[in-house]
């Protein structure tokens, strides 16, 4: 047994190293924890329990390359009256009154050399959850997908011949 130990160790280290170096995982490795946000906003409550449409707040996702982060103005549309006694809402009101945006912490970050177009994907009937995961179950939003190129390509490869919304593998589509 002992004489096999060294080769087994070497081989498994190499294999793991290669995997770590070259492969990404389409699901984060169990680190389903998002950053702490200035206001404890719960998607689980809004998108899950209250069944709000994603595009109600992130309205530019279907009109623009960029999905907007809602301004306090959007929030206050409801929270002028709703749940005004909660401390988090009072925090929000304070931001709103002082004319400032809460310093939200970015969860999904693409490198600058990737141009992702939200509009195209939303209009191709791809559910937000496909990439962002079950946001409606997340109390604190975390990065669900790896957002790596191989992960993007997986879907794009599968839909190359999609008759309605053909995907592309052309590099220029995202890198320009």
């Amino acid at each position, binding site marked *: 047994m002992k004489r096999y130990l060294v080769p087994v160790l070497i081989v498994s280290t190499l294999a793991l190293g290669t995997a770590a170096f070259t492969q990404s995982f389409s699901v984060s490795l169990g680190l389903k924890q998002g950053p702490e946000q200035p206001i404890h906003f719960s998607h689980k409550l809004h998108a899950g329990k209250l069944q709000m449409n994603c595009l109600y707040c992130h309205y530019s996702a279907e009109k623009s390359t960029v999905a907007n982060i809602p301004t306090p103005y959007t929030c206050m549309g409801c929270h002028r009256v709703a749940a005004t006694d909660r401390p988090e809402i009072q925090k929000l009101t304070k931001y709103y009154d002082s004319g400032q945006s809460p310093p939200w912490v970015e969860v999904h970050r693409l*490198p600058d050399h990737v141009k992702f177009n939200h509009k195209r994907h939303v209009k191709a009937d791809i559910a937000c959850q496909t990439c962002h995961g079950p946001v409606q179950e997340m109390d604190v939003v975390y990065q669900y997908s790896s957002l790596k190129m191989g992960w993007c390509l997986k879907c794009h490869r599968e839909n190359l011949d999609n008759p309605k919304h053909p995907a592309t593998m052309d590099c220029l589509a995202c890198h320009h």
Partner: protein
Amino acid sequence: MSDSVVFNRRDFLKLVGLGAVGVAGCSQPAEKLIPYLVPPEDILPGVAYWYASTCRECSAGCGILVKTREGRAIKIEGNPAHPVNRGGVCARGHAGLQGLYNPDRLRTPMMKNGSAWQAVTWDEALKTAAAKLAGARAAGKSIALVTDNVTGSFQRLADTWAAAAGGTHLVYEPITYHALREANKRTFGVDAVPDFDFARANGVISFGADFLETWINPTGFARGFSAMRARPEAFFVSVEPRLSNTGANADEWVAVRPGGEMAVALGMVHEIVAQGLGVTGNHAGVADAVKDWSPEAVEQQTDVPAAVIRRLAVMFAKARPSLAVAGGVASQSELAVAMVAAVNLLNHVAGNVGETVRFDRTWNFDAVAPLSELQQLAGRMSDGSVGALVVYNANPVYAAPAWSGIAAAIDKVPFKISLSSMLDETSERCDLILPSLHPLEMQGDAETQHGVHSMLQPTMKPVPTFDARTPGDTLIALAHGAGFGTFPASWHEYLTGEWRSLSGRFGAGEEFDAFWDRMTKTGGAWGEPTGSTPGWGAMPAFAAPELRGAGDLALIVYPSSLLYDGRGANKGWLQELPDPTTKAVWGSWAELHPDTAKRLGVAHGDAIQVETESGSVVVPAFVWAGIRKDAVAIPLGQGHTSYGRYAKDRGVNAFRLLTPVQDAASGSVAYLGAKAKVSKSAAAVELVQTQHQRTQHDREIGQVIPVSALLGGARAAAAGGGGTAGVAAAGGDTAAAVGALSQMLSPMQSRPGLHTEPRVHPPGEKIPAHSVSAAEPELVVRSPRREPVDVGSYKHATHRWAMAVDLNSCTGCTACVAACYAENNIPIIGPEHMKRGREMAWIRIERYDEQVGGGRNDVRFVPMMCQHCSDAPCEIVCPVYATYHNPEGLNAQVYNRCVGTRYCSNNCPYKVRAFNFFDYSAPDKPTFAFAEPLNWQLNPDVTVRSKGVMEKCTMCIQRILEGKGNAKDENRELRDGEFTTACAQSCPTEAIVFGDLLDPQSRVAKLSHGERRYWVLNELNTKPGVTYLKKIQRDTATT
């Protein structure tokens, strides 16, 4: 890639106010932003909005559309609806953005404290200024207001303000049109600068007018000019001592002795009248007036052979309507009025007045003062009768001859206020600077052409880096503070008041607010041209100017086509764009004829000293045959002693060479009037050029087709019903056609042999889009097994993006290059690196002087960008697929995959790839090209490249993707021309056409299969996606 230089999200939120939208109205913008063609609604991040406005980079006042993203202006394009430019923008127009985001713009009001500048608050500054103005008025002194040619409502406000303040409003422009106005007053009885309809003319003779560069309205004229040149017979002859870039587009260059233009015009008149050509009804009394100017007599005075004058006269008279224009340096001499009058007479006898010379829509230079008025002001300043001076945008300390005495006079004024946004030479001498907003940030209007009321609207909220105000508000605040005149509360109120009076004429019966919104949205109001054609008035006296001075070379000081009179010098793009004539950047030069240079013992690039009685400068010599042996030419624009990092201490200020010669009639300064002494100098100067070869060494990069072959080919095609290009030309049995054929099929290009034949496509074969090219290689090595790839994304492609570049239209103006810099985040790298050939431009204009030196003129401009070859040599050699062929035929460059082997550039026969030798996008590096806030201009749709990667033309892939997305949103097919590349959009002559080659109805497909097509270096079988159209070569000598 390091996009960290690009604007970040937080800045964006601040700027568009999204971070605080609806917060108790406390940060409502002063003015509403009204986008062009889209309803003003919430501004979405990631979506581009367009605002109509007016370009204020020169006096022409082109209509522009400004593209904004995330609330910041990132691109300027021409407004196709605007009558001045009809869609084109020149390089200077594009560079307006670099004025907006100029890192050297003043950030706050500044007060001079001893010799140092001190930042002060607006309140404090206004209080001080108002007190000083009030003091000056109390002391019975006058107050002088000096501006550039502002026109429109601001002109009226300034006039009123100056009058109320007890002073004068002087409009100072270094380049003026006084001779034109004066001559028109004398000959036609109209004191105006007429419009010129180049498009209608069948032939143009220019007497020194650089109408494609700076003269009156270069962009608009270029559009008309290209329309004219599209007609094979329409000729253009340039009569000037130095071949300007306008002259470079001529079929013939008459290298006239400096100051001899008038004589040539009169010689032509003499001949026309003698032969009874033109409109004989206009000949009355003319023969007598020009009796001393027979072609033979003119030959004596001008070195222009009598035969040439006779030929030109006949050509000109027969090509009705034709057009003769007088301008440029030729019209800025001691006796300039006589010269312009002679050209007027020429137009008159040929019957062009009212046809191509139009007085129904005149140009507005009414308020511009000649130099003599500036001298008078200087005199008043010197004798102490001026108590305060207010300057806006004018920079007379730099842009006036030293002998005007303005600099010393300004120092004598007790208190000087500048409203400039830059610390230029004049502002530097002031005591207080109240920085003004950039025209792209402010509300206003302009009336550069009578009857064309253009709107200036703020295309973005003022750049927060700079604490500036609208000059109108500043003037009003000063008047209020000093207690003179009656003015409305704000400039906005004044402006709307002015427009209220226009609403009656241009309104569609709507409320004023609706009218105002419509005006801002569309860019202004302009009705049909009105006015009558004047008749011939008095016959003026004709006399040619005499050049004086100790030297033996006539000094020609001309405005630079990029820096103009120097106001563009602090814009990196304009410094880095190669001058269309010399391809020189970041400096000054003096042009010399090779024989003159030889006589002086000077080689190209050597330092020479040019000396007049007023001053002397040391510049590198630019030796070429495009200038007469008895002349030396220096461009204006450089030699700033302040004005910002890009302008300071670069080149020489040619205004300093001007001798005290003024137009006798108007008092404006004479740019042609001195003789200069030129000698070799030992000083170290450097001439940085982007192109060194003046000819193409028979390589047929830029090709021509003789007009005879073109007409012959058309006849043959009509007769035979088929055939294209050279083969068709051969069908014509004329000797000219055979000559054309031999010219097209040079030995280098065509060597058919046994082993070379084109691949035959079986009928019905489907060729994937990526491999389509209009090119028909003459040499295809047979490779029967080579099939286009038809898998993956390649399977479904339905477009093949391509371009057609018409060399017959290209005037070499470099507007496309500037547009590309703006659109594609191309960094500027400075002279040191330009010298080493590290230019980052994705498109360049190659210039080949095939025949220059008087007589037949053959200058070819070849816009050279990535050819997007179907069989691209660059792609094969990249080891990491950083460059590859995309399904829609584009040669793609993936920056983030590039490792920087530079092999692709080596293997590119067109040498159109630019390499990031340094980190131009890292703020901590000395090579950083986007000094804050220049980075605000960066296009967020285009990656900013980091060091060590190759980049090149993408055919504006971001626009292609956007266009395809729009079509998809609307569930329709793409329409030809619904989007185009930045270069094509900007081109004043529409020489570049972009589109889908697979759409047989597209303009590009039609042009690419037209008669004049060819492909650069086609013998290399690259199958380019860019088709060039041969320049039409007209031999005026036989026309």
